[in-house]
């Protein structure tokens, strides 16, 4: 009620504004300047949904860069071999015994580049399809956020300008605003309410 009085007093007290409804409307809308603007809400919703265009575009860059890095293989092998040789020099004498142990230790390092991947990476096709899907989802998200944001703003202004409104209607309108706020919270991970409280 105080808000309505303020607006009406403001409009009536300023003859210029009373003559110019647009200027008065600007003044009314300026009362919500403390709330996040629609672009911030759009951006936040995109971040929350991981639908920023830059992120999606970076997938392709990463797949290209991946082809410059080699496939690296390292190997270590160890083998041991015990030999026991007995040599008979005569039929009566004891055989001459020679024991031998062979030990082998090998290391291998292999780097492999698929040069064809640098020209055409098979994953690019899949990424391109994902980019198209992400683009559509992003538009739908931005459009939804924008419409909810301005529906909420309209509800706020309606409540502000409503004269002779019953308590029931007022509660109904306030619930509507709360519902839309919760909706925006859902799309921004609670960021919207935090910003309003701040």
């Amino acid at each position, binding site marked *: 009620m105080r808000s309505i009085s303020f607006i009406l007093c403001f409009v009536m007290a300023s003859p210029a504004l009373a003559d110019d409804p*647009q200027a008065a409307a600007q003044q009314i809308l300026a009362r919500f300047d403390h709330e996040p603007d629609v672009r911030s809400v*759009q951006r936040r919703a995109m971040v929350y949904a991981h639908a920023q265009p830059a992120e999606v575009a970076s997938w392709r860059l990463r797949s290209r860069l991946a082809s410059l890095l080699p496939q690296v293989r390292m190997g270590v092998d160890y083998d041991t071999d015990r030999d026991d040789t007995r040599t008979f020099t005569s039929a009566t004498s004891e055989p001459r015994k020679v024991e031998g142990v062979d030990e082998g230790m090998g290391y291998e390092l292999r780097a492999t580049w698929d040069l064809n*991947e640098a020209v055409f990476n098979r994953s690019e096709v899949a990424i391109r399809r994902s980019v198209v899907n992400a683009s559509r989802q992003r538009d739908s998200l931005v459009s939804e956020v924008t419409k909810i944001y301005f529906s909420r703003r309209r509800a706020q202004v309606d409540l502000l300008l409503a004269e002779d409104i019953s308590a029931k209607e007022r509660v109904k309108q306030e619930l509507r605003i709360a519902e839309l706020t919760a909706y925006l919270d859902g799309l921004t991970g609670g960021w919207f309410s935090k910003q309003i409280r701040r």
Partner: protein
Amino acid sequence: MQSRAMRFVFASTLIILTVAQGTPAAAAGPESSATDTISLHQGLIVATTADGLYRWDGTEWKLWHPWSLRGVNRSLVEDEEDEEELEKLRAYDEVVEELVPSYGESAALRAATDLLGYDRPKPKLRFQGVQERTQPLHRAVLSAASHRGWFWACTVDGMVRVGATVRRLAHLGTACYDLVAGAGLLVAATERGFYRLIRPGEWVRISGPLPGLLLGLGARQGVAYAATSGGIFELGDRPIRRSGVIADAFGTLGDRLVVVRSGKVSFVDEQGQLRPTGKQVAGTVMRAGDGSFLVTTEEIWRSIGDSLRWVPIRPTDGELRGALDYGGLWLATSSGVVLPERLVEDQMVARLGAVLSPQRAVAFAEKTQQAMLLRGLDMPKQNPAWATWLPQLSFTFDNDDRRGVGIRDLEALADSLDVEPEDLDPDLVEAEREWRNDLLDGGWRAMVKLTWRPAPERVARYRVSLESARNATFRERRRVSKKAARMLAGYLAAERRLIVHPPRTVKSAVRRLLKVQTKRALVEGLLNQEIP
């Protein structure tokens, strides 16, 4: 009083014709010259201009019937000559009017020529006051309608009936002011009064001129009405004044009479009372009727049921004069007919060029392209065939150390030395143990390997999948471009409307500002950047 009013009307018409003379008529047809009306006749679209009737043949305008109406291609005359000519014209018309009831139109014209010794002179016109030659051409055809298989045109030279030939109905009058067609009804208003068509070739005079300046004709439920500066009259067997409403413009929308006063549109009910629609039109009303359109020089409104709706149109070069909804919206303007096809074809250009300034259009186009890149929607340019012919490169380094350890039999050694094993020299035994650790073999290897795996079948598969991805990207690019253009047009239209039709209350201003902001935010969200 009546004659004074009619004289005023005639003088007004004369002034209009004089002005019309100021601009030479172009013979280019409705493509580029002023078009007064556009209507449907026998399934064809007919446009009327000062130099003739044109029909749309599906691809272009074709001249149907040429005509030479007053005020077109006339040379300037001296004042004295003009007065003399006008006097001769008046005398001729008076004689014709007397003779028509007994002789018929053609015979009356011949008899008048014989009696007076000259043919009917065409009125010569002159400039009154200082008229700019660039002033827009005024209408030569005030109204036109298709009725009973004929095309009827109400022109500044009188009523004209058009079929296989053009016939001027001189007996109805020398100047026609308005024409209304309804169900089984065709009524024309001329300087001699009001005429109703009974059957082709037979007209009955309903009444003489009504008091006051004629503002327009309308029809409701098979009855014609005329609005003058003295009120609204029902044109039955005799004129009956039904309302005292003084309108600026009068006509029919659907089956209801409509008046416009100070830009405010109202319907007239059965009792002659006004029923305001709450709509305010801008500009001068050119036509209220011919179906469901209310046309002003600046706007078009369409009657839908009980409501009137503003029709969005692309900006036109000249003033609006008529509209026809036939496979799209056809607009008759003072600079020619605007075709629906052209609207469709030029949609993008109009949105980016005409609605925006060229600089802003370029900036917007750049932003759209930038938005595509940000989304990763650049068109793929790779050729998988090249990829298949490139080898797989591998570089291998390996190291292999082998130690062969032989432990000689100490017993055999002691035996060969002929000593007991326990008596062997400890140094010798130690040397034998160290010998175990001697390196017997060791080496390293480096290898570069190139592997080609050409497989045409795999290349073909890659190509198909890449082509499919390319198509999907192209479709998405087209969707984004189209959506961006449409949203931008919507935003600009909302902004333009806010300027052209400013809100009158704070509440409506807030709502409309929010609407504009919503549209702007949608464009910016789509492009993911600020728009200029």
